[in-house]
């Protein structure tokens, strides 16, 4: 449903005439007149109010009894009083009741000092109690989960956490047990509350009943400072506030930005800060000496890298990972291209320049907030909870509150299937055929052939096309296609029909509709725009000579055409497919220079020079959100003694090669970047501000987006017949699909609190295949193909499509990229 247009009405509160949108809840409307009504259970982020705590009682003329301000919509001409004796008495009584069973252990309680119950008691309470009987007692403190501690005595039964679990994250785990004074919060089956978004209940709790276990007793509000930045652990780029004490990050809290994260955080973002201070972190430069990486002084490491780059004679390649900022990416491509004259720079964008230009066309862009208010959202080839977790909450919110229609088209069963009107499955790797079938269904072409090639049902594709076509009732409504950029690996075979589809849906230039791509890595979009792609410079400017992409770099390393590989926050063995190929390629490279925060396999085995990387709490720079929002990273803490900023290292390497970089601070790098990217023209770090800025919303900047070389991709595609590779037929074997769990990252491994979530390899199978192969759930199996094999635990999922098996990538051992696919065989593991 499109965003509602607010209609302003006038009402009176405490004798003041106040303008507010009609039907806004009184608590919010009162704030417009500078009147604060105390609340506990009310939280606009949680949706419809429940009126459970009765703290917000107000006197409305014409209504005999006091009304709850949180659940009474404001009407024109309403006269509200919040300062009458009746209201005061009610507030004091409610607080007296709330405090009957609330232990007065504020000095011990972690919430003390930032506790709404303390504040409201102080501001609105009577200050005394008549209750002398013993208080209610529970066993405490208990672990609600390894991340959350629960103190049931402190709970005031506001329902916030339960509502979050039931209505926001929809994991349906938290419930209220028992009745009356004996009521307590718990999971319905008594198991720990483990969910991707469980940490949010800590921030929601208005008392100290739910507290963070990693933050437990670490600091009090007056010991700390909050420092705003952006989380760079996934493409969602949630705005966060680091809680810093004694130059250590102790906690991460959400910093509300409705356009980015809606005020929520996933547990990875909330708890993986521990990796910043992990012992495993690399905090000194290292050089491989006698086959072993040894810590060396900075000068030695720089010298080693300079020599290696010099000796290579321009046979250099650069590869940037997702945590790379725009500035680092920009300087890396300068180092490789301008200083060493090699065209090989990539950040795994996966598309040639023409494709990037067509898909990134400002007229086609949708925003994260559009997901919530669109008529229909098509999730294509991505699992939001793993790839961009916060979007998962946004989609659920859209379905639940704004009657958005959700359609899911993925190869692996999605956690959003229950919310979707229609879910279509296709064979892993058959995105091109699937999109071709969908697009054909729009244009009346042949649907059956591509649908069969995609291993999907032509009827379902037609149904999906009909759903998209009639999304806005009779006419075409606002449609947002949320696609994982991994589906674009098929190149033009995917982008062409996808653009054709976008044309058919009228997405171009339509506000509230468009395409939204989830990059495989955090700053995928920014790196692309900063020119870290093989065939385009900063601002996606055309280049004279195109370089090799990641796969090409691997081949060129193996062939010896490239001798030095510069890795920026990435480990190809983890982040790239074809692990064996990369293993060989890295082995052949004479020098592998890496900026790394953790000793992952590729770094440990192959890097010759390792520069310690800054953590995201220490970094300064800019990154770009998948929807085009430029956001600014600000350092919350100082770097460890042995760590230098990556831009400084790149600057030194360029200076050592005799180039005057003109860099003095990271801001001079930002300025150079903004000057060389035409569509960032006129931006400065100050204009980005605390909440960032979507560059394409400014018409002049949007107009600066380069024209594709082949003009009118949208117009011409109808004539060309797309060619697609048919998905492999299982024929006894299984098609291999991969997925990367939200928990598969070195930061999670290094965080003691999250370690229990770090995934081990499992293979997801349909029960049909499992029965045929005689495999039971939880059994150890080996998944093999092409001579390589991976040990995994069989995980049977009813929803899993027959004929496909799904393995995890991005984990340290036995990741999916060991296998080259597309077909695998599964056998029971030999018992030893």
């Amino acid at each position, binding site marked *: 449903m499109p965003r509602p247009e607010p209609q302003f009405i006038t009402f009176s509160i405490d004798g003041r005439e106040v303008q507010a949108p009609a039907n806004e809840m009184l608590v919010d409307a009162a704030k417009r007149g500078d009147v604060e009504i105390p609340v506990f259970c009310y939280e606009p982020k949680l949706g419809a109010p429940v009126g459970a705590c009765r703290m917000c009682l107000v006197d409305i003329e014409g209504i005999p009894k006091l009304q709850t301000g949180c659940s009474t919509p404001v009407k024109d001409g309403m006269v509200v009083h919040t300062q009458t004796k009746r209201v005061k008495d009610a507030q004091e009584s409610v607080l007296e009741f709330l405090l009957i069973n609330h232990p007065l*252990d*504020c*000095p*011990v309680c972690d919430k*003390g*000092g930032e506790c709404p119950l303390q504040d409201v008691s102080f501001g609105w309470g009577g200050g005394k109690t008549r209750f002398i009987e013993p208080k209610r007692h529970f066993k405490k*403190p208990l672990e609600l989960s390894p991340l959350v501690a629960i103190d049931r005595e402190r709970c005031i039964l506001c329902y916030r956490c339960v509502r979050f679990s039931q209505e926001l994250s929809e994991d349906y785990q938290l419930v209220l047990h028992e009745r009356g004074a004996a009521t307590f919060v718990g999971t319905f089956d008594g198991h720990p509350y483990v969910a991707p978004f469980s940490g949010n209940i800590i921030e929601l709790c208005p008392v100290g009943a739910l507290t963070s276990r990693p933050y*437990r*007793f*670490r*600091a*009090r509000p*007056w*010991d700390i400072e909050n420092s705003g930045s952006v989380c760079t652990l996934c493409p969602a780029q949630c705005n966060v506030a680091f809680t810093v004490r004694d130059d250590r990050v102790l906690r991460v809290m959400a910093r509300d930005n409705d356009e980015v994260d809606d005020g929520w955080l996933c547990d990875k973002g909330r708890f993986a800060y521990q990796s910043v201070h992990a012992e495993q972190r690399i905090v000194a430069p290292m050089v491989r000496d006698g086959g072993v990486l040894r810590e060396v002084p900075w000068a030695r490491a720089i010298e080693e890298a300079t020599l290696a780059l010099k000796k290579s004679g321009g046979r250099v390649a650069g590869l940037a990972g997702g945590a790379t900022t725009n500035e680092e990416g920009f300087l890396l491509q300068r180092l490789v291209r301008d200083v060493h004259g090699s065209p090989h720079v990539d950040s795994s964008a996966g598309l040639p320049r023409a494709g990037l230009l067509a898909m990134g066309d400002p007229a086609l862009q949708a925003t994260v907030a559009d997901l919530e208010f669109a008529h229909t959202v098509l999730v294509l080839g991505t699992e939001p909870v793993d790839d961009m977790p916060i979007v998962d909450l946004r989609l659920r919110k859209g379905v639940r509150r704004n009657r958005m229609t959700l359609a899911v088209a993925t190869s692996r069963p999605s956690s959003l299937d229950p919310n979707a009107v229609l879910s279509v499955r296709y064979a892993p790797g058959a995105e091109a055929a699937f999109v071709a079938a969908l697009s054909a269904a729009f244009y009346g072409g042949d649907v059956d052939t591509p649908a069969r090639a995609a291993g999907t049902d032509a009827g379902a594709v037609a149904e999906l096309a009909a759903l998209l076509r009639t999304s806005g009732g009779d006419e075409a409504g606002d449609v947002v296609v949320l696609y994982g950029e991994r589906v674009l690996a098929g190149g033009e075979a995917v982008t062409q029909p996808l653009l054709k589809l976008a044309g058919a849906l009228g997405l171009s230039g339509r506000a509230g509709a468009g395409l939204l791509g989830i990059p495989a890595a955090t700053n995928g979009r920014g790196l692309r725009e900063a020119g870290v792609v093989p065939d385009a410079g900063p601002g996606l400017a055309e280049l004279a000579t195109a370089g090799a992409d990641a796969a090409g770099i691997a081949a060129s390393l193996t062939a010896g055409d490239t001798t030095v590989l510069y890795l920026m926050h990435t480990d190809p063995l983890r982040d790239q497919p074809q692990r064996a190929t990369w293993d060989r390629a890295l082995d052949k490279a004479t020098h592998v220079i890496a900026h790394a925060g953790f000793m992952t396999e590729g770094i440990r085995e192959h890097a010759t020079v390792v520069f310690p990387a800054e953590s995201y709490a220490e970094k300064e720079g800019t990154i770009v959100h998948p929807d085009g929002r430029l956001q600014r990273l600000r350092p919350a803490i100082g770097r460890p003694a042995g760590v230098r900023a990556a831009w400084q290292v790149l600057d030194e390497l360029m200076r050592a090669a005799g180039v005057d970089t003109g860099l003095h601070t990271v801001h001079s790098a930002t300025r150079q970047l903004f000057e060389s990217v035409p569509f960032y023209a006129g931006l400065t770090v100050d204009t980005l501000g605390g909440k960032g800025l979507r560059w394409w919303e400014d018409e002049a900047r949007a107009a600066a987006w380069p024209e594709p070389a082949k003009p009118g991709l949208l117009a011409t595609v109808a004539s060309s017949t797309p060619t697609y590779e048919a998905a492999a037929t299982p024929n006894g074997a299984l098609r291999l699909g991969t997925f990367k769990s939200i928990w598969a990252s070195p930061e999670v491994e290094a965080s003691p609190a999250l370690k229990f979530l770090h995934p081990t390899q499992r293979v997801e199978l349909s029960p049909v295949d499992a029965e045929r192969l005689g495999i039971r759930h939880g059994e150890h199996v080996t998944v093999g193909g092409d001579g390589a094999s991976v040990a995994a635990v069989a995980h049977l999922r009813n929803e899993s499509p027959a004929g496909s098996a799904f393995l995890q990538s991005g984990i340290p051992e036995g990741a999916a990229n060991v296998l080259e696919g597309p077909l695998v065989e599964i056998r029971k593991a030999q018992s030893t």
Partner: protein
Amino acid sequence: MPSTTDWHPGDDQVVVVRGPKPGGAGGAYRIFGETLRGLKTTFARVVEGTNTIAYPEEKVAVYPRFRGRHRLHRFEDTGLEKCVGCSLCAAACPADCIRVVAAENTPEHRVSAGERYASVYEINLSRCIFCGYCEVACPFDAITMGNDYEMSDYHRSDLIFTKEMLLAEPLERAPIRAEGE
């Protein structure tokens, strides 16, 4: 605009009245009379004998409410620390000289009576202004102002008192004045 040179203070000027002019009876009184008046007090004390306190061998007894070096307390029965590491003293401290880092009690390692205890409790006595706000802020009467005033040392770092030092009995206790003394 009147210049500074012709400034006139106005009618409410202060007139300094000096004593009588030197010489004469007034002068003689000032020389002898006033001096003798002072000496009266001096000689009146002669009969008391010397009253020198040979510090540091001898110490002045302080009043019971004298605010000296802080002390942390334990429960007498259980031996557990009264301090739960709530940091309220640090919040109240106007000189910002208290640092508290809390930790959680475990059944095997129980330090205080509550859920948390102070794993680090430091007072920088070179900064402390001995105002006693920490004592007022403490909800568990865990910190009180002691009577010890001998805190000088050779190194500033030695003036940062740790929890163990604050919990321990002072090496030498300052004498306290008895009631009505």
